[in-house]
């Protein structure tokens, strides 16, 4: 029996790894996800057989309830809302890990304690699971705009967090020293402190830094699951947790690199809170900024030979991805070469823009990442910036005092003409002026991104 279970788990692990491997290219990615599903089904069935029907009703309730919530949400969510959806599922995983530890704690507390390995992994999985759960919920609330996406800071923030962390470490030490037989109230205190820390550490992180936070929370949950594996002696959980932890860590590092900011700066820097003090006005409005009409821009686009679209979070907010695709089609019909340049941290999670454009049927071959896009700009007639700001800001290249100095950007300013679709002259998320808007080859097209793109499409059609 046990051998069959181990073999089933081995097969499941192989399928997970091979499935992830197949995510290395879009044509095979779907098969990869299916393989991972098969792996999960095998692991699920074999573990169900192993329980011999004990606790079947609880499992049934969980599957029906959780399965229904998960699947219905997955089928209904809008692609623009994908970051918060991923945050929620991530939080669910972290929460489950923490609850498993809580169950194990009650089992331990009623006995004479367990060995050190179980105690250490139990307490770690409880702490990290709670962090991930609470952090993901806050990330969700911010992304869903149920609370402000701006960084929330208050005096002494770091001190409060440090104090809570110390309390957590102290309680964890107590837990380990007593091999898991500490009073129930103390354990609850540990859980509460961990939840609180999860809330407090995401609060000061602003919307534009969400790609980093989502990746980091992803790796936290992976870690929590791996540690849970040690707790219940399951190599299956250890391997899966490690795979996810590695993936989340890798993405976190990539996102940090794409912003040229160390992780500590993202987590503790409360980016943008300083610059936010000058509201609305930003660069003070009408310097040498040229605004263009949709008709002017349409002519420019229609007679260009190469156009690059540069989407940003503004495209997601305006739900403009289908309009963008329609404009691209219209231009292609006239023989214009249309490409898309995507900055790694455009949007609110890694690959956010790619998914939106995939939704609107833009072939993925046309989506260029930064390294491939930048050499294209000097030979581009028009760069159309759709709701992106900081990732196109040339100040990152040469203004040493700029908060984003050193961040790799898309070189849209090297294109012959730059058109920026923007709601208003408000400065971007970070409250930083964007000298791009004042360059002689730049024109602004003000208005809602979707409305502007639709107007452009109509104008191009009419030509």
């Amino acid at each position, binding site marked *: 029996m046990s051998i069959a279970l181990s073999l089933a788990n081995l097969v499941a692990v192989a399928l997970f790894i091979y499935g992830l491997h197949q995510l290395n290219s879009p044509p095979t990615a779907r098969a990869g996800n299916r393989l991972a599903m098969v792996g999960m089904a095998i692991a699920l069935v074999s573990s169900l057989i192993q*329980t011999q029907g004990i*606790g079947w009703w609880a499992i049934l309730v969980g599957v029906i309830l*959780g399965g229904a919530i998960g699947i219905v949400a*997955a089928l209904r969510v809008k692609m623009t809302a994908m970051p918060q959806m991923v945050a929620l599922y*991530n939080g669910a995983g972290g*929460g489950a890990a923490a*609850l498993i530890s*809580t169950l194990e704690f009650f089992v331990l507390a009623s006995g004479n304690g367990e060995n050190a390995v179980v105690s250490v992994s139990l307490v770690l999985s409880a702490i990290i699971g709670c962090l991930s759960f609470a952090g993901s919920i806050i990330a969700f609330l911010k992304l869903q705009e149920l609370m402000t996406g701006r960084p929330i800071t208050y005096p002494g923030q770091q001190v409060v967090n440090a104090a809570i962390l110390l309390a957590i470490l102290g309680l964890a030490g107590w837990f380990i020293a007593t091999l898991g037989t500490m009073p129930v109230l103390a354990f609850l205190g540990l859980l509460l402190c961990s939840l609180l820390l999860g809330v407090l550490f995401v609060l000061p992180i602003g919307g534009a830094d969400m790609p980093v936070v989502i990746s980091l929370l992803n790796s936290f949950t992976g870690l929590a699951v791996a540690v849970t594996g040690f707790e219940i002696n399951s190599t299956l959980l250890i391997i899966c947790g490690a795979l996810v932890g590695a993936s989340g860590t890798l993405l976190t590092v990539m996102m940090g690199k794409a912003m040229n900011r160390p992780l500590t700066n993202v987590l503790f820097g409360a980016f943008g809170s300083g610059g936010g003090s000058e509201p609305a006005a930003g660069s003070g409005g009408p310097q040498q900024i040229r605004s263009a009409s949709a008709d002017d821009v349409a002519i420019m686009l229609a007679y260009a030979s190469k156009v690059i679209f540069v989407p940003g979070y503004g495209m997601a907010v305006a739900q403009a991805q289908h309009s963008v695709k329609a404009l691209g089609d219209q231009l292609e019909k006239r023989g214009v070469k249309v490409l898309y340049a995507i900055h790694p941290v455009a949007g609110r999670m890694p690959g956010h823009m790619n*998914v939106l454009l995939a939704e609107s049927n833009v072939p993925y071959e046309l989506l260029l990442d930064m390294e491939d896009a930048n050499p294209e700009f000097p030979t581009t007639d028009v760069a159309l910036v759709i709701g992106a700001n900081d990732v196109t800001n040339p100040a990152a290249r040469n203004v040493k005092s700029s908060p984003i100095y050193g961040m790799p950007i898309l070189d849209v300013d090297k294109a012959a003409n730059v058109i920026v679709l923007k709601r208003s002259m408000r400065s971007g998320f970070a409250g930083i002026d964007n000298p791009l808007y004042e360059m002689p080859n730049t024109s602004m097209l003000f208005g809602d991104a979707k409305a502007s793109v639709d107007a452009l499409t109509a104008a191009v059609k009419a030509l």
Partner: protein
Amino acid sequence: MNDIAHLIQLLTVLLLAVFVGFEVISKVPTTLHTPLMSATNAIHGIVFIGAIVVVGALFAGPTSPLLAVISVAALTLGAINVFGGFAVTERMLQMFKKKEGPRS
């Protein structure tokens, strides 16, 4: 001593899995990073199986209503994670299309 040997075995597995993870994930192109995140999300839904194992062991003995509630909550969260994660990944990956040859 046996315990330690077992722990080292588990740590070996962890280490190898981490390396495999880095190796496999680093080959995923940026365009698939969102599906990658949601797929790995679904994979850490394996925690659902952890919940099944723990609940199975727990319910073999006497339980309290409190533990039953926590069990159901853990199982529900785990199930949301697994089923939702795979479903949303599947939905996203359906959308990634190659350039169509002749007009659609």
